[in-house]
């Protein structure tokens, strides 16, 4: 391995983390601002011009808050839980392809682990880990509301992971590869998989909302029922880490959706001509998806827990299976697979 590669990795990793952190901060701002506009309010508008410094103010406030650890909590797990939740959310983004350019006489791939040939499997594996953080947070707090939140989330995330995984299968079959870069390439040759895989796309969006515990599936932290769910006992930076996870996951899920179904960094004609636009195109797609997620939150009531499970097992899973079946059938008929 040459030194250039190492420097490239480190630079890219730092950029990625900085982008994610800033993304998290300004996603909270974006959500509050958009929600406010949906609801006839102004939203944050005091800190800085049009409230642009609000995320900084929130961050500073949370850093200086007292970290309360309940007397009867399991201290080690209580402290570890936010960390277990936050790390998977960050490392997923390593495999997202962002396009590449020629620079300094070498091909520079914008993404960190560029062309991991089992990219989809990696995403599946890593997302599954974060449920541990939530369950352990709920359990170690020694609070009944937190416990209920933790139980709910484990059941919910496990159920929806199946549908989510099966929704991944469609694009993987179409591209005949588990590598995200290949999937994006396949879409650049034909059309976006959202068009070719409408069922898969819808299943993915719904399952993704459940997977990241966003409204209308924000069961684990159902404010009205469980006060705050699994993170009810957390304060200060540990609480901020749960928020960090939630918003980072929103970004990550949008990135995955854009990559698998909306052509990723590729946009017809635009990125063919100017490949350096790749990350910006992806960014635009992600913003649109994030806007959708916020819009859903502003509009829909929460699904009840048992109805959520019924939806997951009785509707989403069969629909996803059906999608795989149809995809395989059509591909066989068209002679794309032997």
């Amino acid at each position, binding site marked *: 391995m040459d030194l250039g590669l190492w420097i490239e990795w480190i630079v890219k990793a730092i950029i990625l983390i900085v982008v994610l952190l800033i993304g998290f901060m300004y996603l909270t701002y974006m959500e509050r601002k958009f929600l406010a506009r*949906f*609801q*006839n*309010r102004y939203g944050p508008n005091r800190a800085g011009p049009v409230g642009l410094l609000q995320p900084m103010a929130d961050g500073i406030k949370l850093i200086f808050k007292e970290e309360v650890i309940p007397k*009867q909590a*399991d201290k080690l797990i209580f402290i570890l839980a936010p960390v277990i939740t936050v790390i998977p959310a960050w490392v997923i983004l390593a495999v997202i392809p962002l396009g590449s350019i020629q620079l300094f006489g070498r091909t520079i791939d914008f993404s960190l682990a560029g062309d991991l040939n089992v990219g989809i499997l990696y995403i599946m594996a890593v997302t599954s880990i974060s449920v541990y953080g939530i369950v352990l947070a709920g359990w*170690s707090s*020694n609070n*009944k*509301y937190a*416990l*209920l939140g933790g139980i709910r989330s484990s059941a919910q995330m496990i159920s929806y992971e199946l549908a989510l995984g099966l929704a991944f299968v469609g694009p993987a079959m179409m591209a005949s590869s588990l590598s995200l870069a290949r999937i994006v390439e396949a879409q650049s040759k034909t059309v976006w998989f959202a068009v070719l895989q409408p069922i898969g796309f819808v299943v993915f969006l719904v399952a993704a909302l459940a997977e990241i515990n966003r*409204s*209308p599936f*924000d069961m684990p932290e*159902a*404010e*009205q*029922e*469980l*006060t705050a769910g699994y993170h009810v006992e957390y304060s200060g930076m540990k609480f901020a880490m749960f928020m960090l996870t939630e918003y980072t996951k929103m970004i990550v899920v949008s990135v995955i959706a854009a990559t698998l179904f909306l052509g990723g960094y590729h946009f017809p004609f635009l990125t063919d001509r100017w490949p350096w636009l790749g990350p910006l195109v992806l960014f635009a797609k992600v913003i649109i998806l994030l806007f959708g997620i916020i819009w859903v939150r*502003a*509009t*829909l*009531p*929460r*699904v*009840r*827990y*048992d*109805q959520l499970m019924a939806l997951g097992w009785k509707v989403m899973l069969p629909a996803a299976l059906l999608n795989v079946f149809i995809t395989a059938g059509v591909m066989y008929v068209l002679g794309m697979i032997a």
Partner: protein
Amino acid sequence: MDIDFEANLSPDVLGEFAHLVSERALTGETMLLNMGPQHPSTHGVLRLLLELDGEEVVNCIPDIGFLHTGIEKNMEAKTYLKAETMTDRLDYLNNLGNNLTYVMAIEKLADLDVPPRAQAIRVLLTELQRISSHLVWVGTHALDAAAMSVFLYCFRDRERILDIFEMVSGQRMMTTYFRPGGLWRDTPVEFEAAVRDFVRYFPPRVEEYANLLTKNPIFMRRTKEIGHLDPQTALQYGVTGPMLRAAGIEHDLRKAQPYSGYELYDFDVPTHTDSDTYARYLMRMEEMRQSNRIVEQALNKLPLGPVRSNNRKYVTPPRSEIGISMEALIHHFKLWTEGFLPPKGSVYAATESPRGELGVFLESDGGPTPYRVHWRTPSFTNMQILPILAKGHLVADLVLLIGTVDITLGDVDR
């Protein structure tokens, strides 16, 4: 580490409720969960002791009294007129309705006449109050189901009603605008334009909330067949208001024993037979539309004339008379120091509040202060039904059930 079930059994946790939970709670098979009094969805300081099997409610034991303010006893220490200010604080979403009930009782006790203009304005404002109370209800009910935008839309529109209240009484909520024998004073000039503006503005807004909720599949699945209340139980528990009408019993005091001139207005009393949370939601939405109709009619035929009775033993004379009439000065002085002295006797007056039958029992011993005041508040009576509704449902439903009963803790605890 596990949840300490032994702690559940200790007298400090269960206390006086030990006999109310099932056997299974005592063996730790079911979980006891304290919901409230500091919980975002109990609509105030209501404490519910829940016995849960998983997430299913086995027992729900309401514990009230956290907002007890001693209003009834306090009123006995004040003159009739001063005591009226306490009524604002009873059911803080139905201030004018409380005022109306109270002044109606005094008028009945003293056989006071009320000019027609005052009656019409009373109806108009009480119906606006009903709309504003139902707006808070729809908003919080939707918020309980986590549809949070509706809440803010409702509060935006409620603000217009509160502006009208402020216009007439100087106060947004603690109005004390209706007085024995009429009103505090006539409405200001801009009043009619403001109400007309609201009457036109409001109907499309109701449809806006309905668009967000009525046909929303998630909301329908959250509310349909939840909290069924059969009419027989409702009657046995003395449930009134939209809860009773959703069970198919058409009982509305505005129709059953019209007061304040309600017989002059053309409006429907919506009823439903499903008697579930969804039916009660539809009922209240329809009531808002009907109330808007009443407001419009009241506004269109608002009679001119005085707004206060001329009975100088109960109603203070206008200030202009004080300078020229000795009697007026004496009445003014007597009424504002000693207060009026209604005849001996007891009286019960009731109105249809947004929550049900709101009644007040007044006993007078002939003195300037009431001898006994008792409020029959709909929230208190209706809340008895909550444990029955909640049994067998999930915690998530319970939150909606608290909403569907539509309690105001100020009204429950007094």
